[in-house]
C-alpha cells in the first residue's frame, strides 16, 4: 500500500498520524479509501464532485498528481495546502 503523508488540520482529522498506509490504484481511489478509514476527512480534500479541492496539492513521489494519477504500492503521496489558497 502507498504511504500517505498528511499535513495541517488533515493530520488531526486522520487520527493524528503523520504517515499511514492506504490502498488505492489511483489518487482518487486512495483519497476515497482515506475517507473510509477516517470519515472526518470527508469533504476536506475531495469535494462532492470527487475533485481535489482547488487549493489542495497532491504529490506522488514528488510529482504533482491529479485524481486519475496512478499510485503504486511503494509510492509516497503527500497532501498539502497550496500556497495559492491563503490570499491575504
Amino acid at each position, binding site marked *: 500500500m502507498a504511504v500517505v503523508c498528511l499535513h*495541517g*488540520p*488533515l493530520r488531526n482529522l486522520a487520527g493524528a498520524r503523520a504517515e499511514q498506509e492506504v490502498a488505492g490504484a489511483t489518487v482518487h481511489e486512495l483519497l476515497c479509501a482515506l475517507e473510509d478509514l477516517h470519515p*472526518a476527512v470527508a*469533504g*476536506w*480534500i475531495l*469535494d*462532492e*464532485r*470527487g*475533485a481535489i*479541492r482547488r*487549493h*489542495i496539492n497532491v504529490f506522488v513521489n514528488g510529482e504533482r498528481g491529479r485524481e486519475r494519477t496512478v499510485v503504486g504500492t511503494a509510492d509516497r503521496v503527500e497532501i498539502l*495546502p*497550496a500556497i495559492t*489558497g*491563503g*490570499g491575504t
Partner: protein
Amino acid sequence: MTELLLGTKKGLFALEGEPGSAFELRCRAFAGEPIDFAVRDPASGRAIATSTSPFYGPKIWFAEDPAGEWTQAEGVALPEGGDRALERIWVIVPGDDGNLYAGGDPGVLFESRDAGATWELNGALWEHRVNEDWQPGGGGLCLHSIAPWPGEPDKLAVAVSAAGVWLTEDHGATWSRGNRGIVPRYLPEEALEDTFQLCVHRMERASRDPERMFIQFHGGVYRSDDAGQNWTAIGEGLPSDFGFPLALDPSDPDSAYVIPLTGDFDRVTPEGHVRVYETRDGGATWTPRGDGLPSAQAYLTVLRRAFDRAGEGSSLQLYFGATSGDVFGSGDAGASWFTAATRLPPVFSVTASE
C-alpha cells in the same frame, strides 16, 4: 449584556458589552480562517458558525460556548457525483419551530432539526436550481436571506442573488417565485419582462405583520404588503438606493433601516459620510441617523450580513460592521451611535443577542 458574534476575514470574534461604550473581546475562534457568518441559536443556546477555508471548503460548526470547542456539523454538502460543489454558506437563521436554516452558494438551502449538528439539503429548491438558468451575482450565487413566518413554520421566504425571491407554504416541499414589481435597472428594458435575474441583496420580514417584507435590492429598496408576492419601490428620499444590509424593528412593521452606498460603481458610504437611514412609515420617508458615526473621510463598505439588531422599540439596539474592521452600535434605535470595536479584520457578518 449584549453579545455580538462577528464573522471576519480572519476568524470569529465574540464581543460583549452594553450599548454606549466599547465592547470587550471575549474570545476569538478559528484564528486565520474566513468566518462568513455566526449566530447564537435562541432555542439551544449554541453558537453556530460557517467557515469557508480556501483550502478545505465550506463547513458549518457548532459550540456550546464560542470560547470552547467547536464541532463540525454533518450533511453540509451537495449530492455526491453531481457537477456542482458547495461553495459557501452565507447565513444561518433560526426558524420558528426550533429548527435552523442555512443558505449558501450555489443557491442552496439546508435545514437542521437538531440545533445545527446535522443538515439536510432542501431538494425541491435544489431542483429549481439545477433545472433553471440561475445566474450568480458579484458575490456568487448566494442564498443569503431566509425569512421564517412567526407562528407558521411551514411558511418561508428566501432570497437569492441573483435569482430573486422564493416562497414556500409547505415547509419547502414546493416553491414559487415572488418578484412582481422588482425592476432590475442593470438589464436592458427589452429584457425586463421575462427576466428572473434579480439581484436581491437582503430581505427581511416584519415579525408583527408577517405579510410586510422589505428588500434592499441591487439598486432599489422595496416593500411588500402581501408576503413577497408583489413589491413596491420605496427608495425615494435616500441618497442612494444601492446598498446591502437591512434591519427592522420587530415592534414596528412600518420600520426599516438601510445603509446606502454610493452605487454599484462605488461601493462606499456616500461622500465619506457614514449614515444609517430609517423609515417609520413603510418607506414613504427616510431620516438619516448618523449622530456619533464618522461624518468625514470615512469611505466604508458594509456587507449584506454585517447589520443586525437586538431588542425592539425605543430600546432597539442596532450594530453594523465594515470591511475597515470598525463596528458601530446604537442602543436607542439609531438616534445616537457609538464605536463598539475598531481595528478588527474585515467584517463579513454581525449578529446581536441579549
